[in-house]
């Protein structure tokens, strides 16, 4: 069964002299919800539009299901798309908006009506069917846009930042609805977003894009735990990972000694192919610091350092402390502490680091010590 599978092989896209997508290989299994993330302008929308057929690739091939659809008209690819701007037809009622594709396909009125009614029920749009889009709220409009897709019963749903025009509360609610919809329909979905939370919570797999190339593909937790390179490490996770420059002092079979500003960390590695003297970057997520006595006394893998508080951001449920830790780095490190802890700017704070949770990257930005087998599986 390959219905709903999407396969990209060496897909490239240039606009004139500008290469936007520089060779993307990707296989999306049927029923997966794949999320494209990446910085603005990296080509997420372009890649999605290539799948939809609104843009034609300048190289490579695209398959949906068993068919090569590289040059097939968008309406015949078995896809449906939700646009960031909703893109509803302003002069048509909700029912007409949802049934428009079927009407163009020449289906009888009764069939259209039935399918629209069914989709409207799934999305709780039934009382709104006669309204025009301008008489709907943002969330309702987005549901109509999704309804327009459901009605077409596509193999693949495409979403281009569908929630970015909604306010925070509604976004959370719609996110849950999309997750529910995915579970209910079991269809393949490709979802573009800027939002970390959307990506982490919705995705079966996340594809991290940067400048037209795939940086890493993997399950959300995998990307979080084992970023394959500096880019992914910095991109996944919020606030972003702290990076510290260091030099390898010694490499043992199961650990690497890295000299930071004034301290040397012994980082446990399964495999370390770094030579003494090599420049490396150590990454620590803000949430992986431990403050004060919270450091496990029995944990011999933890090291403590002194710091001075530079700035405090209190979010209620958690506190972000910007710290100066001269022994680790010249810059400011961000530490996330759960709970609302009273911290005073300018005072000292003792902070612990669990060495097993430190990430290590070589001079080219590739992760050191992530198991080689995993890296290979991820890149394929």
């Amino acid at each position: 069964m390959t219905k709903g599978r999407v396969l990209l092989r060496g897909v490239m896209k240039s606009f004139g002299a500008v290469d936007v997508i520089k060779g993307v290989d990707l296989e999306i299994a049927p029923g997966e919800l794949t999320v494209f993330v990446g910085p603005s302008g990296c080509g997420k929308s372009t890649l999605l539009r290539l799948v939809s057929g609104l843009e034609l690739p300048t190289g490579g091939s695209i398959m949906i299901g068993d068919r090569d659809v590289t040059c097939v008209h968008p309406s015949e690819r078995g896809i449906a798309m939700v646009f960031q701007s909703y893109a509803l037809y302003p002069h048509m009622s909700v029912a007409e908006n949802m049934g428009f594709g079927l009407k163009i396909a020449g289906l009888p009125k009764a069939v259209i009506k039935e399918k629209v009614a069914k989709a409207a029920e799934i999305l709780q749009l039934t009382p709104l069917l006669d309204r025009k889009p301008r008489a709907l709220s943002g969330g309702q409009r987005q549901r109509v846009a999704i309804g327009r897709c459901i009605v077409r019963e596509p193999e693949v749903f495409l979403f281009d930042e569908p929630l970015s025009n909604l306010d925070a509360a509604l976004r959370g609610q719609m996110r849950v609805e999309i997750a529910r919809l995915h579970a209910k329909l079991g269809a393949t979905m490709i979802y573009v977003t800027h939002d970390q939370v959307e990506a982490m919570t919705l995705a079966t797999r996340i594809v991290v894009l940067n400048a037209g190339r795939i940086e890493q593909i993997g399950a959300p937790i995998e990307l979080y735990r084992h970023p394959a390179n500096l880019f992914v490490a910095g991109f996944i996770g919020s606030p972003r990972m702290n990076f510290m420059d260091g030099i390898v002092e010694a490499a043992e079979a199961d650990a690497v000694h890295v000299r930071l500003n004034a301290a040397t960390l012994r980082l446990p590695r399964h495999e370390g192919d770094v030579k003494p003297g090599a420049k490396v970057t150590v990454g620590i997520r803000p949430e992986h610091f431990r403050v004060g006595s919270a450091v496990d006394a029995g944990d011999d893998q933890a090291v403590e350092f002194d710091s001075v508080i530079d700035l405090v951001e209190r979010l209620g449920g958690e506190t972000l402390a910007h710290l100066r830790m001269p022994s680790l780095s010249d810059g400011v490190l961000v530490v996330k502490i759960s709970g609302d802890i009273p911290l005073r700017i300018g005072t000292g704070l003792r902070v612990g680091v669990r060495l097993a949770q430190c990430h290590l990257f070589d001079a080219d930005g590739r992760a050191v010590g992530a198991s080689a087998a995993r890296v290979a599986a991820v890149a394929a």
Partner: protein
Amino acid sequence: MSLMPTPRRDIAWIGRANALVRYGVLIGVGLIMLYPLFWMVAASFKPNHEIFGSVSLWPRDPTMDGVVKGWRTGTEYSFATYLLNSFAFIIPKVVLTVVSSVLVAYGFARFRMPGKQLWFALMVATILLPKSVLLIPQYLMFREFGWLDTYLPLYIPCAFATDGFFVFMVVQFLRGIPPDMEEAAVIDGCNSLQVLWHVVVPVIMPAIISVALFQFMWSLNDFLYPLIYLSSVGKYPVALALKMAIDVTEATAWNEVLAMSTIALLPSLIVFFLAQKYFVEGITSGSVKG
């Protein structure tokens, strides 16, 4: 006891005085601009001698004489013939203009084609071309076609989007509309013409109405082209008929002329007020992010 009342009453008073001055000036200037129009309407109901003999706007001896005689006109045809003649070429002209301008503008606004910039610049340049430059070559051409003394030269050119201004207007309007809706329609299975018909046309309806309205009013007022191409009085449109009323009789019956001018104004006025709501109503609101 509150501290607020005194200043608040002051502010309200200043606001009201402000509005009074503003509306006073607006209404005053508006009346000055409309005065000739009122005068014309009023003069339609005056006897001829009173038109130049009195400054009063209100007729001293109101009479329907001007209207009745004017309608009959000094020719063998009644004014109704001339009105119908006008519509006989204006309606096809408006329809052809709308269809061709929208098609061409859609092409310019949404499709990639070689040398698009150049073609667009050329089209805009034709707007700047004085009409009189084309008069003689066009006349010779239509004479060769054997179209003289027919309405064809008046509206057939419009089938080819020759009014660059209208094309330009629609292109500008389209540029302000995000193409997402059209892309959604493509995914829904429309070809380009279906996208145009089902999505673009309804969305740019305000622009289309403006084009139709401008073309209607300008054509109704057009004097030169009918004068050049039409020779039989039985085919004259309103603009020529009015002119005829002035020179056929030695002593012009001004009340008749003005009465007919007033009637000639009515179609434009009616059409304008019927279409007005489309100018006001933002038909695209609510389609894309709100």
